[in-house]
Structure formats: structure tokens, C-alpha cells
């Protein structure tokens, strides 16, 4: 298991030798610094805390300032933990770079999806739309939401309109097409959650099998 924090740069295409094309997302991954090590005796679980991207000192809140000052690490903007099964093998101040991954690896990418505000059922759940013509007034309405006198209520969990997006989402089993170690860039096949410049976590895929 490897975790790395990064920023989504955007999407582009990669051409293979035989002319086939792959849509890829470019992620600026790392360098990340180990900012804290959580241990069984101290915290009740084993984990490594990683930090990504320096931030100006004046923007750091006081509690975080203390957290970074304790280990004399430059304040980081994005902190996430990687849960471990055993005690951590690294030390505070160790650096994780994009070369932690290599071409062909399968990864999961975790990010915060684009916020869509209060969205209707068509956008949020993929409901069908009604007719726009022939006297229809039922264009984007959800339709029937249940039965009549029995049970005379709407069943729990009925999909409806409401807030959509701006939520943590994981896309699983994406293939790494290329790693640029110099600039710490990872090219991941397919899309990843969130807008360009959004923070993402890239980790070794939890399920899925690496093909030959």
C-alpha cells in the first residue's frame, strides 16, 4: 500500500504507437512529507500522516502551527493519513514522491467532487425527462413518488432532489500510464473526482488485480 497526496492538473490524451488514444488525467503528486507517525500505544492505531504543498506562514492557524513546529516541518496545506497494519517503517520528515508508483500500477483516486448545489432528480439520479411538447407540463418533474392510502407515506430512501456533489468520492482501479519523476507528475487513465487544481489522494488499488 502506498499513498500519495497531490493536485489534479487536468486532462489530456496519450497516443500509443499503434495510434490508439487514451484519455488521461494528470496529477501533480508529491513531494509529500511525513508529518506525524501515529502509533498503537499513543493513538490506538498505526498510521502515517502525510502533508502536501507548502503554505505561507501567515495563513497557518495556530493549532496547526504548533503541530508543524513540533517536528520543524514547513506548514503544509493538505494533510491526510494512511492507515497501516503494523508499526510505521518511515520517520518524520521522510519524503514521498511520484516515483512511489510506476507505469501499469492500478490505483484508487480519492477526491472531492464538484459541487452542484441543490440538484433535481435528472442530474442527481439520472431520472428520465418528460415530453417538452404535445401539451406536456411534466418536463423535469420526478413523477410519482409512491403508492396511495397504503402505506400513505413515502418510503424511506426514495430518491429525490437535493444537494449533490462536493462529497468525497473514490474512483477505483485506474491504470497509471506514465510517471514523470522530474516534475512529480502521474498520468492516470480515465477521470478522477474534482475540479482541476483540486486536492486528490492517490493510493494503491485496494481491490483489482494487476494484469501481467
Amino acid at each position, binding site marked *: 500500500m502506498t499513498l500519495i497526496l497531490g493536485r489534479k*492538473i487536468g486532462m489530456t490524451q496519450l*497516443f500509443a504507437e499503434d495510434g490508439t488514444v487514451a484519455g488521461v488525467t494528470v496529477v501533480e503528486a508529491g513531494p509529500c512529507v511525513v508529518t506525524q507517525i501515529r502509533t498503537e500505544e499513543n493513538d490506538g492505531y498505526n498510521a502515517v500522516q502525510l502533508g502536501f504543498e507548502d503554505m505561507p506562514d501567515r495563513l497557518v492557524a495556530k493549532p496547526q502551527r504548533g503541530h508543524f513546529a513540533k517536528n520543524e516541518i514547513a506548514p503544509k496545506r493538505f494533510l491526510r493519513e494512511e492507515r497501516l497494519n503494523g508499526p510505521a517503517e518511515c520517520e518524520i520528515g521522510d519524503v514521498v514522491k511520484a516515483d512511489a508508483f510506476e507505469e501499469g500500477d492500478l490505483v484508487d483516486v480519492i477526491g472531492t467532487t464538484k459541487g452542484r448545489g441543490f440538484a433535481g432528480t435528472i442530474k442527481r439520479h439520472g431520472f428520465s425527462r418528460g415530453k417538452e411538447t404535445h401539451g406536456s407540463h411534466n418536463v423535469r418533474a420526478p413523477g410519482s413518488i409512491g403508492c396511495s392510502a397504503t402505506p400513505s407515506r413515502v418510503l424511506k430512501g426514495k430518491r429525490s432532489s437535493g444537494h449533490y456533489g462536493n462529497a468525497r468520492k473514490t474512483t477505483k482501479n485506474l491504470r497509471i500510464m506514465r510517471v514523470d519523476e522530474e516534475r512529480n*507528475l502521474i498520468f492516470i487513465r480515465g477521470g478522477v473526482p474534482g475540479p482541476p487544481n483540486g486536492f486528490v489522494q492517490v493510493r494503491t488499488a485496494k481491490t483489482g488485480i494487476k494484469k501481467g
Partner: protein
Amino acid sequence: MKLIDTLEQELGKKDLPTLHPGDTVDVHYLIREGDKERVQIYSGTIISISGRGIRKNICVRRIVQGEGVERIFPLHNPRVQDVVITRRGNVRRAKLFYLRDRVGKKTRVKELVGDKVRRERDAEKARRAAITAAATAQEAAPADDSAEETVEA
């Protein structure tokens, strides 16, 4: 410049001719016949240019046996080996979809002439010569191949 644009510039082909809608072009496209590969030349009029950076495509229209055929070529695809401008077109639109409704002599696009075209043509020739020269300088054997290609074009 945005990092993604820089990346696209690095990943894509370094030198492509400047193409315009209305230009008549020969597209050298690598096709597979059984287990052999050969270059097929598809010539026609560019009726639209879409996308930017590495995702740039051209749509080339030609009439084959009385039937209009349009093919879209991703310019940065390695299978598109070369695009040669044979004639510049004088058009006032970015998308020439109106050509689809025309038959016979009306499908022709007026040729663009003038000093600017002449200068651009010379620049294009110079660019191709520079590429060939660079190839010759690099290696003797493959340079011969590329020279032949330019003659054909």
C-alpha cells in the same frame, strides 16, 4: 502557460503545418492491410478544425464516386504521418458544412492567392527543408527515406 498546455506541447508532434479551413490537403495515413502496413494518401478539403493542443482534429471532405466522404484525423496521432497543403482556399467561415449541401462544380472552394499565401508557402517549404536537413544530419540511412517522401509530396 498552464502546465497542462506545456505537457501537451511536449507530448504532441513538434512541427505541424499551419492548416486553415478550405485548404486542400493530402493526408498521409498509415493503414494496415493484413499484417503489412502502408501509407495511404487521402486528399480533400478541410471543412472543420476542432480541438486544440494535442486533441486537434481536422475533418477532410472529398467526393468518392459521386458520394461525399468525410474523415476526421487527429493531427497528433502517429498514424497521421504527414499533412501536405496542395492548395489554399479563400473562405469566410470556420466551418464549411455548407459544402455538404452542394453537388458538382459548386463543391469547389475558391483558391486563395496573393503575397501572403506566397510567403506562407515559402515558409512551409523552408520548414520542410529544415526538417529534411535535420534528418540528414542525424542519420544517413533514414534521411534518404524522408527525402523521397518530400519529393512525392
